[in-house]
């Protein structure tokens, strides 16, 4: 009986894990393909954000991106059309890093991969999303700590 319950639980978990992020994975793949983002080999974290929305959430996220822009395990995708906002938010070296991408077609926002109100982090292993977290004013510190821990453990 105990084994049967364990088996059912295991089966449920294994069925749900890929499906949980099925929609998100499809959209992220579309973005990766559109902007030629290659990240299938190692574990990666994608930080996605729109250019409007919660100012304090953006402040935290911009600071994190600036401080970590030279980390190749991180990819930053900025969804929006405004060149002015990008220039106002980020330094010239950050904007020109290889892991800094501009989603000018706003695929991430349009398909609701990232909320309009706040940024979002996606955690991947071998190109597959295994976790995600919204970045809000209240939890930004803990999410970025989680990002660092995730990358250390890879």
């Amino acid at each position: 009986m105990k084994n049967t319950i364990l088996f059912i639980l295991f089966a449920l978990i294994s069925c749900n894990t890929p499906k949980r992020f099925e929609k998100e994975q499809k959209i992220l793949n579309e973005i990766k393909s559109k902007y030629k983002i290659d990240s299938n080999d190692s574990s990666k974290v994608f930080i996605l954000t729109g250019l409007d929305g919660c100012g304090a959430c953006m402040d935290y996220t911009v600071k994190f991106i600036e401080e970590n822009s030279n980390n190749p395990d991180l990819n930053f995708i900025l969804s929006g059309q405004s060149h002015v906002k990008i220039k106002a938010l980020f330094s010239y070296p950050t904007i020109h890093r290889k892991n800094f991408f501009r989603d000018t077609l706003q695929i991430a926002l349009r398909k609701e991969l990232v909320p309009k109100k706040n940024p979002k982090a996606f955690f991947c292993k071998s190109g597959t999303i295994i976790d995600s977290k919204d970045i809000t004013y209240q939890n930004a510190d803990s999410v970025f700590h989680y990002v660092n821990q995730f990358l250390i453990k890879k």
Partner: protein
Amino acid sequence: MFILISTILIFSCTNNNNLNITKFKIELISDKLISLDSLTDPWQTSFILSDDTHLQNQFFVLSGIDNSLQIYDWKTGKIQSKKILPKEGPNGVGDAGSLMVKSLDSIFVLSDFQFKLYQLDRNYNVVKSYSLLEMEGGKPSYGKGMFPTSKRFCKIGFFENKLYLGGYPLISALKEDFYLKGATSLSLNLKNNKIKYLTKFPPSYVKRFRQGKIIISQQTYPSLTYNYAKKQMVISHMTDENLEAFDLSNETSNYYFAGSNEQNDFTWASKNISEKEEFKYFTKQPYFSGVYYDNYRKVYYRIFEKPNPAKVDGYDGEPWTIPSIIIINENFEKIGETEIPKEYSLTSIIIAKEGPYLRKYVPDEDKMVFTLFELVKL
């Protein structure tokens, strides 16, 4: 027989009145470009053309991105000066939201979320700051009074040592007091720093609330304009067909019909509308987005926005609305209405001596475009 004659007489009188009013329409004439620097987002700006005759050709722009105050030559569209306003410190002005230029030594900057108004001199130093918070027993009382909005269509006015600002009540729109008692404008006496709440929502709002309806957050902003010669502050509420004329001397309001030919019966949201549904609901509703007094031509322009049926989502490049401009004379008689192209969706109006200008949507981020229009007699 008597009734018949009376009816004919009344009818003829009414017709004569209508015939005496000259009707107008609007014709678009030419574009004016304001060249922006690379760190100014044209849609994150607040701007005014100074009313002061000495500053006639100076166009003031507050840029939300870098908190800067920029002055342009209105004739050439070229920048003359730019100063980044500090947010903190002795000359800090917080997040500068909107401005009013009395003279170069009296530039008033509103920081709405701080409930503060700052007076700057020509060197952009803070000369004085004023609190817009409700006071109780000599201390600021948070959660009461009015939120002073810095929306472009809600102009700050100046009349006899008082500044006038619009906003919405700091009361939940689910409570009757929001419609019955909540303030939509205030005056700030620059001599004694005292604020006084002046106007409320129109009576029709209370009636609709009692029928189980509410206005949602996007519909709460009043638009303010001023006819100083007649000592009037004129208010347009977003879902009321009437204009409110507030007498600045005796502090009373009168309401005048200034609706659109399109729709004057607004469907309000039900009390249980969810936060998620609000935006979708708002995009399907017509509303009045602003009123502007033209002191050169002695008319009011009221902008009516109806939903654009071609708009599918926020990313399709279609404007949200199709606007029209209602023209009203100083006696608050409607003298015309013209539908304008959808490039002017969510537009605002600048009143200049040579004529009024409409803000035009252009995708380029390096300029602001305004189109001069003309009132044409029909």
